[in-house]
């Protein structure tokens, strides 16, 4: 069957657009979560929408699973190949089709890099707001699939808030336009449903995004604290005062030191926590709010406050934060990045518990936190060469995610479920809720061929894990070990 199936793909794809030899398949064996690896049956690199459509029709007819892939920067294994499936790479769809400066929109092929959108819009004084940390590499198609965030979400929203229209192809080859360039359209909000659907519902061939006017001014302040709790309190105080910062990030000691040693951003190495708070908007507005912000941070016990004096220093402050992951990576052979979201008021309790677990597992943790929107990225340091350490790390990570759910949060804020958090989904959702998710998938993909096995666990998988659904913040049988 394979030879016959591959011949059919060869008929619809140019020779260089179909990879089948193991050495060609290797670059596709994993995404940004490299602990999971698998060679696919083949990799398709179509160049036209008609080729995408043909590939899908052939796969549908032969019951071959399809895993869509953008730049492969995802952190949850969403683009992990399936042994009997094809990788459908949208990497060749790199064209910015049109930028309409008056309407403030950009029509894009799915393989356009996130940062390239803002670069192209800059000449009109416009930009694309969501800025995931992988923005130099990640693609807009992948951003839609994961509903990617970034450091500016509290004020400017996630991918879902910045989309107008998608052009997609279903597994049976039907081309659909979802949404439009108006602000709403008839029927259910399928644009919201597709955003963050992790390649499970349809394949994106075109994305129309909103562009925003560049703010007149942006200014960042770096506040140091001798206590993580005080930093957490300061975040609440800023927001209670009616200020919505463009960015509000927190880092703990280990993350601060790693970042400082790596990029020399000017962070105080002895601080227990730092806050980076950026305000943007009109010149007068930023001036007024900066005064207010100074007062709030002083009152909440900041041990030092530094306002970036110019654009170069502002970028330097951010460089430390943006390099936090690779910086932490220098401390240890490997690190594992978690992505839970919690109600902000739970931060002290959650950080306390994470540090207890860190001792229990004998694994160090650096915490990087999108403090404004409660999205926590604990980075667990480990060494994959030490037998059993990866397993302990994953177990530790699983505990952190369960903790996030137990305090009213979620197992993933912006990285997606993919294959990584599939078991924790059993803890966050009940069987009827998961069944409803499966029903949604089947409304689009009855044969379950698009990225099957990702994002939503099969009910029997959860049953085997032993009904760990968290009810009202309480784990059933909290005394029992999990996994």
């Amino acid at each position, binding site marked *: 069957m394979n030879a016959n199936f591959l011949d059919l793909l060869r008929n619809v794809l140019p020779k260089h657009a179909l990879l089948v030899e193991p050495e060609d398949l290797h670059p596709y064996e994993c995404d940004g979560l490299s602990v999971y690896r698998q060679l696919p049956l083949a990799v398709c690199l179509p160049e036209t929408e008609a080729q995408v459509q043909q590939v899908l029709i052939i796969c549908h007819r032969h019951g071959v699973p399809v895993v869509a892939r953008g730049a492969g920067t995802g952190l949850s294994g969403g683009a992990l190949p399936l042994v009997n499936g094809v990788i459908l790479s949208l990497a060749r769809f790199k064209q910015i089709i049109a930028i309409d400066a008056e309407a403030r929109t950009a029509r894009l092929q799915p393989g356009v890099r996130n940062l390239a959108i803002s670069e192209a819009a800059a000449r009109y004084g416009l930009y694309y707001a969501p800025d995931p940390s992988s923005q130099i590499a990640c693609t807009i198609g992948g951003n839609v699939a994961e509903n990617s965030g970034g450091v500016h*979400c509290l004020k400017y929203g996630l991918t879902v808030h910045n989309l107008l229209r998608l052009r997609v192809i279903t597994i049976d080859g039907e081309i659909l336009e979802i949404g439009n360039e108006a602000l709403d359209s008839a029927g259910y909000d399928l644009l919201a*449903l597709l955003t963050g659907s992790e390649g499970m519902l349809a394949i994106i061939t075109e994305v129309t995004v909103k562009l925003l006017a560049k703010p007149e001014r942006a200014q960042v302040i770096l506040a140091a604290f001798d206590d993580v709790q005080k930093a957490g309190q300061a975040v609440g105080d800023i927001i209670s005062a009616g200020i919505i910062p463009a960015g509000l990030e927190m880092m703990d000691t280990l993350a601060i030191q790693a970042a400082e040693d790596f990029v020399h951003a000017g962070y105080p190495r002895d601080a227990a926590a730092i806050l980076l708070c950026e305000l943007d908007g009109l010149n*007068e507005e930023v001036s007024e709010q900066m005064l207010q912000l100074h007062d709030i941070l002083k009152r909440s016990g900041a041990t030092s406050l530094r306002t970036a004096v110019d654009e170069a220093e502002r970028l330097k402050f951010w460089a430390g934060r943006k390099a936090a992951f690779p910086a932490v990576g220098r401390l240890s052979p490997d690190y594992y990045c978690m992505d839970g979201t919690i109600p902000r008021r739970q931060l002290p309790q959650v950080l306390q518990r994470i540090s207890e677990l860190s001792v229990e597992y004998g694994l160090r943790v650096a915490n990087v936190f999108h403090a404004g929107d409660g999205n926590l990225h604990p980075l667990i340091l480990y060494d994959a060469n030490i037998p059993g350490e990866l397993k302990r790390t994953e177990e530790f990570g699983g505990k952190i995610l369960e903790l996030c759910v137990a305090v009213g949060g*979620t197992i*993933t804020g912006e990285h997606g479920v993919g294959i990584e958090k599939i078991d924790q989904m059993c803890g966050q959702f009940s069987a009827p809720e998961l069944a409803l998710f499966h029903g949604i998938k089947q409304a689009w993909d009855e044969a379950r061929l698009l990225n099957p096995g990702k994002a*939503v666990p099969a009910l029997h998988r959860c049953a085997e894990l032993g009904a760990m659904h968290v009810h009202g913040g309480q784990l059933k049988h909290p005394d029992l070990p999990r996994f």
Partner: protein
Amino acid sequence: MISELIEKIQHAAAHGQTLAIRGSGSKAFYGGEPQGATLDVAAHRGIVDYAPSELVLTARAGTPLSEIEKLLREHNQMLAFEPPYFGSHATLGGCIASGLSGPRRPYSGAVRDFVLGVGMLDGRGQQLKFGGQVMKNVAGYDVSRLMSGSLGTLGVLLDVSLKVLPLPAAALSLRFAYDIQTAIRRMNAWSGQALPLSATCWQDGQLTIRLEGTQRAIQAAREKFGGELVADGMTFWRDIREQRAAFFLSPLPLWRLSVPSTADALMLPASKLASSQLIEWGGALRWLHSDAAPGKIRNAAAAADGQATLFRGGDKRSGVFHPLPPALLAIQQRIKHNFDPHEIFNPRRLFQKF
């Protein structure tokens, strides 16, 4: 209360009955005619959780919007999508189900942009929760946003968590004498600049805009804009939002045309109707009173890459909402079936067929 609702749903499912979900009835005019036995949910009310520093409020679906907005105001916060009430007892559930947003929509976002999570009952009477009380959450499909604008056809909302925002420190409204074409161009040009615009409305040769932000910021912006200061801006925008302004008093059917903001003045069936348009949302929303054939109005909207909804009055037999292409409709029908397999909830409120 919830167990009673579950019983009623299961009873309806077992006996092939349909249910018309009702909060205060303030939006019963919108969408297809309510059909079936009334399922009253107004008693399921009360604010469940609100921590101003979290920017999140959770309330039961029957909670009056007025109660929510009053509490938020006490903490200098707001529902930034500025929901229309269309009746003083309007509930949170109806606000979400109708998916209608007010004048601030193009500048701050729509209802769906602020929905963080929902608790609901599906057509099997199962109690389900989606999303949560946090800003960022990508676990599972985004069912909570799907509820916004679903007009109760997918289930009974029990509670909703919303992102809230600080009230702007100051606001002022300005007015300019512009013809329709100039107004459309200006609204779009302003949106492309860093300006504290929070509402726009053109009607009858007058463009009114609202600026919001810190005191000094809006004063500085005022100097850039010029224009004439509107004395009672708050009343003006409330009357637009609630459709109490004189424009909306016409007895002719009211059409809502959702179009790209840059669309030129629409070529509408009868030329005299050009004066009976009201434009909001920076050009993206155009209201029209007209008794022209629905097909003609829909064609005019479609020609501008937009859609037309028969918002109030008129003959609903030809459909309220813009028709969908068959493949898209089929997906919507399967989604409906997934939530409500016995087709109990709000039949034909959103679609003509189901």
